[in-house]
């Protein structure tokens, strides 16, 4: 007589095992360091072209009851975008290929490293890449005189919070996409609109009342608003809510991502 097995018992994730994925990626990127660095420059180019180039004709934008020079407004938006880049590259692109094409994870799960360890390890790595991009961008901002407050000391931890939330979000996309065409859909319909419209390039006060709450619900809005508050020194209770949103997103999205990735790897 066949006995029904009990519900599957999932091994608990282990950070020691998850870190092995971080090491694996660090080893792999030794061969692809140009690719690693290149993603950093995109928001820097935007800062130069739009912030300083177009910014000359824009003058100031309304911010916190006053006016803020455009480049100083845009820079924290691009800082948030640099964390988005890191998160998308290594929370989505790279895991997407490892999961669907390279079958890298199918090999790793035959070792004592389990599926949640892989998902957590990849998110840790994406967070690290996000943070490296953010830290680099902060140095660029300092060099161009776009940091206006000692609150900016908190910008690096804020970058990490932003990178964590966005990496976990990106990992959800990894868990739900299979086709190569999904890459394009995700880029044009999710990443690019987020990048352009989340209070990154212009204040959300520009939006009609009906549209504004939608924009204010996006993670990059909270990330760019948080970072702008810190680099300009316009910190208030509102600032704390951005942190709460991003931390909550990290917790919820990473739990969902682990489940989705498990569903894809268990058969």
């Amino acid at each position, binding site marked *: *007589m*066949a*006995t*029904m*097995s*009990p519900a*599957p*018992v999932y*091994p608990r994730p282990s950070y020691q*095992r998850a870190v*092995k994925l971080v*090491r*694996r990626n660090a*080893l*792999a990127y030794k*061969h*692809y360091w140009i690719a690693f660095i290149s993603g950093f420059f995109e928001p820097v180019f935007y800062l130069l072209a739009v912030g300083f180039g177009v910014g000359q004709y824009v003058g100031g934008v309304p911010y916190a009851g006053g006016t803020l020079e455009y480049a100083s407004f845009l820079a924290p938006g691009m800082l948030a975008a640099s964390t988005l880049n890191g998160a998308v590259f290594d929370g989505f692109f790279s895991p997407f290929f490892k999961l669907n094409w*390279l*079958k*890298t994870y*199918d*090999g*790793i*799960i*035959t*070792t*004592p*490293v*389990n599926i949640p360890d892989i998902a957590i390890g990849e998110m840790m790595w994406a967070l690290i890449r996000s943070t490296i991009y953010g830290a680099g961008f902060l140095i660029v901002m300092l060099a161009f005189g776009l940091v206006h407050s000692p609150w900016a000391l908190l910008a690096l931890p804020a970058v990490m919070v932003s990178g964590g939330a966005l990496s976990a979000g990106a990992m959800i996309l990894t868990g739900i996409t299979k086709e190569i065409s999904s890459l394009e859909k995700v880029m044009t319909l999710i990443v690019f609109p987020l990048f352009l419209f989340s209070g990154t390039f212009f204040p959300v006060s520009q939006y009609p009342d009906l549209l504004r709450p939608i924009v204010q619900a996006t993670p990059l809005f909270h990330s760019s608003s948080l970072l702008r508050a810190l680099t300009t020194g316009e910190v208030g209770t509102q600032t704390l809510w951005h942190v709460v949103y991003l931390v909550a997103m990290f917790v919820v999205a990473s739990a969902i991502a682990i489940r989705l990735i498990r569903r894809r790897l*268990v*058969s």
Partner: protein
Amino acid sequence: MSSPPGSDALIEARSLTKRFDQLMAVDSVDFDVRRGEAFGFLGPNGAGKTSTMRMIGCTSPLTAGSLRVIGMDPVTQSSEIKARIGVVPQMDNLDIELTVRENLEMYARYFDVPRDIAGPRIDELIEFVQLTEKAKSKVEPLSGGMKRRLTIARALVNEPELLLLDEPTTGLDPQARHLVWDRLYRLKQRGVTLVITTHYMDEAEQLCDRLVVMDNAKIVTEGSPRDLIARHSTREVLELRLSDDERGRLKEWVDGISDRVEWLPDRVLLYTSSGDEALATIHERGIETETALVRRASLEDVFLTITGRSLVE
């Protein structure tokens, strides 16, 4: 072939079942694998071999039944089991972003092999699978045979007591196959237990001490290659190719000269204790054969006898 309790069975499966939605992949199979033997799952594609292997390797949960691997339960002790086995999957899933050596270094880390032990062991493994000159190469430019050998080396990095090989030589040219067989034979000599799936009868005969034949999610027979041939086939087989007319003539009286006849689309197989005598009789009766071959019976014949179908279609 079930062994008594307390025996040295390394794998013990009872009513092991795997179902995917409507598809029954493995239907209540029982088998034991003993420590130190080479055990085979022989059967056509889709017979349930890979699903069985993946359950043993703890990467696929069982639907029903029970399974013990190295005395442990795959449901609750998957990490502990995985630490002590090596897996060579059907499709190579080497890490193509790393070099040959880095692949082994990373897997040594996944298995928590201490660094000072991993270094010399990796050198030895690279030599064992004859990839010394390719150690610094990326994976992609390697030939199919080299990739397979690297996958085997990767599966050995934790010095497993049990090695699971899913179709280890499918897609390889004859030379590459023989090299793989040679390495597997040496591992067996060292006491590693091998579990091999294959749809090649020659591979099963070469490598396996004992095997089960799977068909349609079930185990249809079990034994050593020699036992199975003795039990399910005659000693010799006469293979004939003939025109349709001659086929018709042969049909009328052939039962008298052989134990069993298989009428395949392209060939006729006569199972007999002496192929030469049968052939002589056929020629005496004036039947013209296009080709005639007397050969020893093989596992292919066992499969054909039991299921009525060829192994490789």
